[in-house]
């Protein structure tokens, strides 16, 4: 099988794994940070967090930073793979 075909199949698998729960499971899909507090407080009702973040950014800024994090990573991956592609000696793809 060609590499591209395999990659498409792999990506379909990844997308399905994310989309199917989203459609079928009826949940909040929250970041679960609040659920964490709830669970700990359920086990240890007296526990008080002794430290909190210096600052908490607005949700919009936070999602921007998450996007930035992914973008930087994806950019580097693209650069490296592209570099190798350009550099590679001419050779047919050997599917592993």
């Amino acid at each position, binding site marked *: 099988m060609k590499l591209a075909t395999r990659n498409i199949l792999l990506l379909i698998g990844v997308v399905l*794994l994310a989309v199917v729960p989203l459609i079928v499971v009826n949940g909040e899909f929250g970041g679960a940070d609040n659920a964490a507090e709830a669970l700990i407080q359920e086990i240890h009702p007296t526990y008080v967090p002794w430290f909190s973040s210096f600052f908490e950014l607005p949700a919009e800024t936070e999602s921007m930073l*998450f996007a930035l994090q992914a973008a930087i990573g*994806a950019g580097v*991956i693209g650069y490296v793979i592209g570099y190798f592609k350009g550099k590679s000696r001419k050779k047919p793809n050997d599917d592993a």
Partner: protein
Amino acid sequence: MKASQSIRLLLVVLGLVGYFLINEPQSAYAMHIMEGFLPVGWAVFWWVAFIPFFVFGLRALRKITKETPELKLMLGLAAAFTFVLSALKIPSVTGSSSHPTGTGLGSVMFGPLPMSVLGSIVLLFQAVLLAHGGITTLGANAFSMAVCGPIIGYFVYKWLMKATGRQNLAIFCAAALADLSTYVVTSVQLALAFPSESGGFIASFLKFGGIFAVTQIPLAISEGLLTVLIWGWLKSHSTDELSILQRKMKGAETA
């Protein structure tokens, strides 16, 4: 990989998705331990446990860049992969979201130690800028994601390569188990810090761990698939860097 293998893989994935649909949705804690949510003693304990690995990791990184400077780009790729994957908050079958760790690829390529540095950089970024995880809990989170996960991934890869010789299978399992074990360790950490009144550590661990495992399993599979994808890309271009890396990976095998 042959077509029949891919189809089998896809069937396995679909089967698992179906299986998890049966589970009742419930809210779950499935990310890193939040700021302030470990008692001081445990926070310090995990920092102390993590720091030696970080120091060894720095030394391993220095060794790699000195002996094989050609591999710097590959290191960058491994770091970038963790960066991307831990930014992806994916909905899961429990009705809450979590994210993969992306540490499996790097530990298969370079061994587990360099990942203790690369993984903790990601965690620091998220703790400082995103209020995701935290500084006080960074030791614990780094110990699970940047130390334990990579170590398990590495040995899974070595063992499967020796047992089956099928690299894609080995990489898939290494990445998926590095991901999954990270969250198992997180639940151990939480259970140690918060043993339940009635059942102690075990009851608490089952509670945290039961939730974690179910939430993380589909994400671990996703991470395995994505790691195989990236590795396939890398292998499709035969460069000097690739042959150096592969010699290195083989060399570590006999050691």
